[in-house]
């Protein structure tokens, strides 16, 4: 790795950085929890919590130490998302989606330009967004309509115009990673991943984000127009980036986030149970058995989510294993199971608590958690993911 990229002042502060688990807890309690309801109500960007994460140098966590980051593991940043989700799902989703983009560049961006991008991101705690969804293909992210279009007489330059119907926090990001067909003549599935900095991109607003949950992700729709140099294109084919990194990383960080929502709902149900028990000394509150079942179900979900992250980490550097159908199926299973479990657990917690959970003005309120939980299934429809697995099962042979 080129030593010129090391920013000595950044290196000097690494020792002083607080551990990520502490950062997640403090930012969760002091910022995400304080502003979460307002972020949700006004569907506004969770700027206080994201700024706090930035001050704590948590955005560049995955970037290697030699480039000025923390060199943290995916599991560590996924736990940050899990913790933040207990206070504000939108904050957690912004953090999680940003880390997906960073991981793609860390794992597939070994060119001088992209190493500079990472060093700059670590030094300035840059925020990265994603434009995979496109009008006409929806969540079928392994196909693109738009293409990397060469500019005539300028072989090093390209242009992209994408009908990006959902870009979370696009207006707040320093850069966007966009999928596009490799060239105008390329097939829909022959895609590249392109780094487009916001200052060289225009985003023309086409739809606003007024949704059931994850309201603070500000996932507006835009026409994205960018020009750039070919070195902004990640060198690996998107097919490989998707299989080896973007898809498994997304499912790992998202499922951790959903686990955070489920954990918070169960924690409220338990607090409610204890309060009830104090009032009805001598008789066990009626909800106690339901809460016991919830605790068991949550433990199952935690095992699934944390286990999947461990499994990915074990083979993360072995492309042979990552390219196997079995791995793709398991990564998809994680998304399907965890997104179903979070809705089930949060719904059951609401019913175990009853009226106090249904109220919006109670400490045991579950409304926002329930609305955010439903986002899990919508975020790339589970039917679409099951459809992909169904197709693989026509030929897959290994134990699953």
């Amino acid at each position, binding site marked *: 790795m080129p030593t010129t990229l090391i920013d000595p002042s950044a290196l000097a502060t690494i020792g002083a950085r607080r551990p990520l688990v502490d950062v997640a807890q403090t930012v969760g309690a002091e910022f995400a929890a304080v502003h979460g309801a307002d972020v949700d109500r006004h569907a506004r960007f969770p700027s206080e919590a994201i700024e706090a994460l930035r001050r704590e140098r948590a955005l560049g966590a995955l970037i290697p130490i030699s480039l000025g980051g923390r060199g943290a593991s995916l599991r560590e940043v996924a736990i940050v998302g899990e913790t933040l989700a207990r206070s504000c799902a939108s904050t957690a989703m912004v953090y999680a989606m940003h880390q997906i983009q960073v991981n793609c560049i860390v794992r597939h961006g070994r060119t001088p330009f992209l190493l500079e991008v990472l060093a700059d991101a670590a030094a300035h705690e840059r925020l990265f967004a994603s434009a995979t969804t496109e009008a006409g293909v929806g969540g079928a992210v*392994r*196909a693109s309509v738009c293409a990397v279009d060469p500019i005539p007489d300028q072989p090093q330059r390209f242009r992209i115009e994408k009908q990006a119907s959902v870009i979370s926090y696009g207006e707040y990001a320093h850069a966007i990673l966009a999928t596009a067909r*490799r060239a105008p003549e*390329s*097939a*829909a*599935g*022959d895609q590249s991943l392109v780094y487009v900095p916001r200052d060289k991109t225009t985003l023309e607003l086409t739809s606003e984000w007024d949704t059931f949950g994850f309201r603070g992700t500000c996932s507006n729709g835009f026409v994205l127009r960018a020009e750039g140099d070919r070195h902004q294109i990640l060198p690996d*084919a998107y*097919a*490989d980036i998707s*299989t080896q990194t973007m898809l498994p990383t997304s499912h790992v960080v998202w499922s951790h986030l959903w686990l955070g929502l489920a954990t918070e709902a169960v924690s409220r149900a338990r607090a409610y149970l204890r309060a009830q028990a104090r009032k009805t000394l001598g008789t066990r509150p009626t909800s106690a058995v339901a809460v016991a079942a919830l605790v068991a179900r949550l433990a199952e979900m935690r095992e699934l989510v944390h286990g999947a992250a461990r499994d990915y980490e074990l083979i993360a550097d072995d492309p*042979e294993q990552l*390219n*196997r*159908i*079995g791995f793709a199926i398991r990564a998809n299973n994680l998304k399907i199971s965890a997104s179903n479990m979070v809705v089930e657990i949060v719904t059951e917690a609401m019913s175990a608590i009853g009226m106090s959970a249904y109220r919006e003005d109670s400490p045991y309120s579950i409304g926002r958690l329930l609305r955010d939980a439903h986002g899990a299934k919508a975020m790339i429809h589970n039917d679409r993911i099951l459809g992909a697995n169904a*197709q*693989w099962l*026509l*030929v*897959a*042979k*290994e134990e699953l």
Partner: protein
Amino acid sequence: MKHSTITDLDATVRDLLTRHGRLRVEIASLSRFDDLHSAGLTSHACVDLMLALEDEFDIEFPERLLKRQTFASVANLSDAVLELT
């Protein structure tokens, strides 16, 4: 082994690609080594092609060959079939 020469084998692979590959270009315009994924072979079509190859040659692709690379060119496909017959 049904095919005496690699040319015969390639021809059968090309025939199955025409029927199941849903490529964007004429298969005849591709060399043995041209990239099939950039010619439009999707993962969906890969699955159909694999099933057709299994049926045609009475083979089963083992797990280790179920990857993009195996389906990247006519040459890779023929090699895989050769290995399994």
